[in-house]
């Protein structure tokens, strides 16, 4: 019986395509926008959180920030003195004090951009000094050679770690041939430095959202890692001072508690007499959840709009069902004369309304997936369709069909067969 009704309803849709499409438009737009938004939202959230996890989801960031006054207001302008910043001595003391909790203190410092000319080939690099902690924290994946070590740092050696992309560009992809080679790096300022390649690391593509590039070509700028001490020497700096640094906690450390103790350590040990600045410790995970909650709020807001569209769509379906029932009054009368119960007539029209909504919902899912993929590709994230959302959309379409179909169907069911048969 239900199957017969479904076939009947589909036949009705086929014979009245334009009307069916217009009726379904509200449902298509409503379901489509929900799916599109959820797809884009999911892609965004997962890309951001994956990137953050790759960057160290559980990591803490120490940052020298302006100190708020007693009213909690921040100064309008401020300038850092060398003595306000974090230095090697502080960080060493910090690392010793929390030896159990800290896996590594990571320091990276940009040394500007540079170019390497090797025969006819050129590679663009971003010169980056890194400390030993960078490797202790497993920040990069070696594919050949060795990482930079303590001896490189202490000896201020002219050694470097290059990316596999650079090896592809300059050495035809032969990692072994690249190892031990000396490269000449020309800084943007014109100064030239020579480094021996000791290792090759795997270049990680990064989402454009986070300022990276999703694709790799020979113009891609990759990091050239030097010992931090070497970079300091290049720039004529005797003693390192840092605006911020990253701290990788040991496994099983409660990041929240450690965050507070770290702040306390710097405040009590170094900054309590500093009127202008203090050290703030950020937890990336907290940052991530705030990003996620912003995304959730946006999704919710647009979801409400989509819900209104579904409501309007549902009313459209109800309207067309009422029209259809008026047009088919005589048919309803005949069916009743042939023995259809009120229930059978009601079922027939509810099924018809549900079929309209389901077909609309299915088209909406396709439209939404299309728009969602487009949106995701615009922000450079892979499209992720949530099966749960699709199921909810299908369920919701059915619910709209039943809800907005019930009143017209009930009206049809209650028609007086004599009146209906006489209807012209």
């Amino acid at each position, binding site marked *: 019986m239900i199957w017969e009704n479904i076939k009947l309803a589909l*036949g009705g849709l086929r014979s009245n395509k334009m009307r069916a499409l217009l009726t379904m438009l509200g449902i298509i737009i409503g379901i489509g926008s929900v799916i599109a938004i959820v797809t884009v939202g999911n892609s965004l959230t997962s890309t951001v959180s994956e990137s953050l996890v790759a960057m160290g989801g559980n990591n803490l960031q120490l940052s020298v920030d302006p100190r708020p006054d007693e009213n909690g207001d921040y100064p309008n302008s401020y300038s850092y003195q060398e003595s306000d910043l974090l230095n090697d001595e502080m960080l060493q003391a910090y690392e010793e004090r929390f030896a159990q909790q800290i896996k590594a203190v990571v320091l990276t410092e940009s040394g500007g951009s540079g170019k390497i000319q090797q025969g006819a080939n050129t590679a663009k690099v971003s010169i980056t000094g890194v400390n030993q902690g960078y490797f202790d924290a497993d920040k990069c994946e070696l594919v050949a050679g060795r990482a930079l070590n303590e001896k490189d740092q202490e000896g201020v050696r002219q050694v470097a770690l290059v990316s596999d992309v650079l090896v592809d560009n300059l050495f035809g992809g032969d990692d072994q041939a690249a190892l031990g080679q000396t490269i000449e790096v020309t800084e943007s300022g014109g100064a030239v430095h020579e480094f021996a390649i000791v290792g090759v690391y795997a270049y990680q593509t990064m989402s454009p959202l986070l300022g990276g590039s999703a694709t790799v070509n020979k113009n891609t700028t990759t990091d050239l890692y030097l010992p931090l001490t070497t970079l300091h020497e290049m720039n004529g700096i005797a003693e390192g001072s840092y605006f911020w640094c990253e701290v990788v906690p040991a496994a099983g450390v409660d990041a929240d508690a450690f965050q507070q103790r770290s702040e306390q350590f710097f405040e009590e040990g170094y900054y309590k007499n500093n009127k202008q600045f203090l050290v703030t410790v950020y937890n990336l995970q907290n940052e991530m959840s705030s990003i996620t909650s912003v995304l959730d709020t946006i999704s919710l807001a647009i979801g409400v709009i989509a819900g209104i569209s579904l409501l309007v769509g549902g009313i459209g379906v109800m309207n067309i069902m009422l029209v259809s029932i008026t047009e088919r009054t005589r048919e309803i009368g005949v*069916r009743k004369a*042939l*023995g*259809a119960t009120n229930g059978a007539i009601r079922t027939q029209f509810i099924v018809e309304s549900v079929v309209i909504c389901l077909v609309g919902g299915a088209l909406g899912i396709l439209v939404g997936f299309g728009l969602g993929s487009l949106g995701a590709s615009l922000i450079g994230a892979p499209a992720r369709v949530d099966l749960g959302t699709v199921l909810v959309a299908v369920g919701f379409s059915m619910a709209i069909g039943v809800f907005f179909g019930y009143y017209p169907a009930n009206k049809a069911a209650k028609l007086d067969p*004599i009146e209906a*048969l006489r209807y012209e």
Partner: protein
Amino acid sequence: MSGEKKPIIQLRDIVKTFYIGQPNELEILHGIDLDVYEGEFVAIVGESGSGKSTLMNIVGALDKPTQGSYWLDGIDMTAAKDSELSALRCRKIGFVFQTFNLIGRTSALKNVELPMLYNGIGAAKRAARAKELLELVGMEKRMNHQPNELSGGQKQRVAIARAMANDPAVLLADEPTGALDSATGRVVMDLFHKLHKEQGKTILLITHSRELAAECERIITIRDGRITGEVKGGVAQ
């Protein structure tokens, strides 16, 4: 008629009043007594406004009398609830309308299957019976055609097959040739005679045509809501 046969339709003192309790209260039927026996072919004739359509609606279980009793095939129809009336219409009565009233966009076969669908009969059995019936009315070659692809006479033959679907106790035909030309009407009337003779169907034919009525076994005349005459007819052919 033959006294040993039981009445399949038994109407006693049927009164039908519209707009009860309102200033325009209108009594259409003023106490109808009528027995139709199994296997009879009865014509009901009357001018328009005589109340024959109202009587037909009551006999067809589409409407209930205001007063009186109606027994159909041993069932007290005045005591039945609305939902029971649907089931009784489905199993006991086969309607044939003046304007055919086939369901649009639905093949002849599916139209004939429809009453069986409402009777809860399985798909395979429905299709087999529907084909059988369409053969009986000579429409087997056009059973996959939709109503808009059929002529009036063809539509009425499909409608008769549909009325026969659940092997009803009574075929109720309301002006079945009224919308057809005389030649096509003849074909339809012959079909009723065939069903009457070969299958022993009880048929109630409502018409205002004296000629068609004359072909039936019994002719009942209604005037102003009362039975005013009853004569025996001679079945033609």
